[in-house]
């Protein structure tokens, strides 16, 4: 997976987030301030524009630029959290021209650690961690079992989707949604939902045969 692959992932993520903008906003309206879809679509739009203009020779530089852009363009809690995730992943990949599945797994692990540190969130608290953490585990397991890239990325995306679905029955224990107490139960967490979408984009780009 080279820099072009990661640029393709972010372009795909931007398209998916844009297409699901209203859905994400509706999820956020139930337990938050109804701006997650709008904010994230704007942020990934800016990421696409930034990647077109700047030179990003390595996978690490692609993700670092994406992270910095998200921090500066996305408001609320989502900007810093996603920004931290991409920057940590970029830092983990360093300046190597290509990344293999192991590198990707390490990068996503670093992203998860960054999000958990910044948000002080653990699994089960109805946050994006509930999509990201099982996805990272699933990827690691698939690699350990010797799965090919396509299958490993599918396992990653499926686990993220299942994790996001599982937030429906959770009570929020972090962020503003926690102020709703038990009333936050019954709604999918918008951050977990968008994380699942972004990882689905990674799977789809991989399935096009670019994850070599």
């Amino acid at each position: 997976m080279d820099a072009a692959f990661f640029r393709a992932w972010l372009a795909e993520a931007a398209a998916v987030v844009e297409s699901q903008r209203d859905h994400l906003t509706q999820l956020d309206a139930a337990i938050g301030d109804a701006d997650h879809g709008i904010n994230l679509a704007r942020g990934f739009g800016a990421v696409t524009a930034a990647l077109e203009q700047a030179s990003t020779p390595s996978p690490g530089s692609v993700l670092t630029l994406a992270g910095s852009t998200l921090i500066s363009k996305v408001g609320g809690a989502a900007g810093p959290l996603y920004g931290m995730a991409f920057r940590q992943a970029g830092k983990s990949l360093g300046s190597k021209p290509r990344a293999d599945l192991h590198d990707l797994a390490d990068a996503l692990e670093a992203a998860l650690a960054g999000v958990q540190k910044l948000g002080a969130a653990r699994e089960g608290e109805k946050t994006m961690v509930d999509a990201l953490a099982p996805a990272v585990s699933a990827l690691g397991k698939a690699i350990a079992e010797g799965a090919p890239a396509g299958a490993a990325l599918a396992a990653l995306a499926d686990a993220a989707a299942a994790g996001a679905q599982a937030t429906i029955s959770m009570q929020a224990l972090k962020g503003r949604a926690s102020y709703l107490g038990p009333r936050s139960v019954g709604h999918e967490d918008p951050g977990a939902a968008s994380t699942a979408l972004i990882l689905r984009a990674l799977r789809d780009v991989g399935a096009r045969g670019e994850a070599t």
Partner: protein
Amino acid sequence: MTTPRRYPGQAAAPGSAAGLIYQADAADPGTTEHAARPAVGAAGAAATPAQVEAAFAAVAADRRALAARLRAAGRTDEADIIAVAALIAADGVLVGAAVAATAAGGDAAAAVREAAEAQAAAIEAIPNPELAERGADVRQVAAAVLDHLAGGQRDRPTGPVILVRRDVAAADLIELAEDGLVGAASVAGGASSHAAIVARGLGIPLITGVDQAVLAEPPGSLAILAGDAGELVIGPAGGQWLAAREKFAIRSNAAPRGRCGQAGPSRTADGQDVVILCNVASAAETRRGLAAGAAGVGLLRTEIPFTGRSDWPSKSQHLAQLTPILGLLGGRVATVRLLDFSGDKIPPFLRDAAGPRPGAGLAALLGHPAALADQLQAVLAAGRDADLAILIPMVGSLDEVASVREQLERATAGAGARTPRLGIMVELAATAASAEAFAPAVDFFSIGTNDLAGDVLGLGRLSLDAGPRLAAEPRVLALIEHVAAAAADAGIPVSVCGDAAADPVVLPLLVGLGVRTFSVPAAYVERVRAWLAALDADECAALAAKSVTASTISDVQDLARHARDS
């Protein structure tokens, strides 16, 4: 003698009380709105960032422990409310801002207040009304943190106290209820605040939206809180205070001893069956009413959480209110009143359209069939297992009944549910006078004594001195007699769900007029049961017959006193 100071406010939890003023915000630097100036002389101003962080952590731990105690006692709803305060006190965004501002060399108390104000303002700007309402909880957490920085608990009040605070918190009420709290008045907040829900559950009268000048009233002042009329009177004449104290003592919050959980049928002294139901707007009240032996809910006020809203509540918002309440009832009676946006409960979005006309709220609801359908569908879904009845408020015409019945049938067919009984509130004088015309069109009558008395006597708001007892006015009694007779002729049940049913003078008269079903505030169930058990139905009938033809309310009271003493 000084003149009593009167503070009007909005009735958030019903009832009345006489007590001594307890100022919980004594450490507050003043009465200016969220003062940014340093807290002159306030302890805690010089706290370090670590102390600020520790104070938040202490408040979070304190709230978590209180929530656990409540949960262990089966008070799940109050526990959920307090647990939210614990989460807010542990919110990194809030704590981080306060700690950072303190570390930057700020006054710690000001840093906490400003961080809370910024977070509360951000929450309140969110277009999710339920989340926006939590802004008040943020400020209450900050107030508790400031208390902690100032050296923890002040002297606990003793005796009958009326809590006065800028922003009364649910936790204040729960904690002080054990120390003789009889009432509360809040500068901030509304009828849908957590504090209001808890106050109603505890049976503690609460008024909100009181002028902040009340915060400067001397602690320990004599005061009378008229929760229903929405007024706090500070510094009444001593004699008046004592009279009020005596009058309200029987309705005070103190839990009756030795009767808790008493169940089984209620009877009068001569063995007549009577049914006691409870009036509720929250699960906490419902739990309290059922624990006291209520046979079900005779009046579920559905509009209470929505009186501050900017649009009709959605089906899911109705479900969020109804499900926790109706889920407690099993197969018991659940009488759900349709949204009653009338009187002082008109939300902003209806204020221009509705105006002061009684019944305007019902007209608005009927004018928005989608809003009515949302509510009916939610009631049918949440009340699936209960013995469900729908109650239409402020009915003035048969057309209104027909219109609701048509929508109800459509909703029932859509849900595949059993058709619930459909009844009307008889609370307009004209409706009561023509009860025989309404009786064939409905399944039951429920008499709302407060509004009926107000309409008959031409009062906009019930006065402090009379309250529910106005139902004993002979003209009101004559109308109640007429309604009860029309119900008997048509073979439909009649109940009284107004506060008069919980008044010891009016209750025998209602029994005497043939009423056998009473729905009373959850906190009064046991008292009413005890009063009924001491009444003889024949004696009540004789008393009622004389009272209906009496000329004034004081004649009726004399008759009642004579009957009781003989």
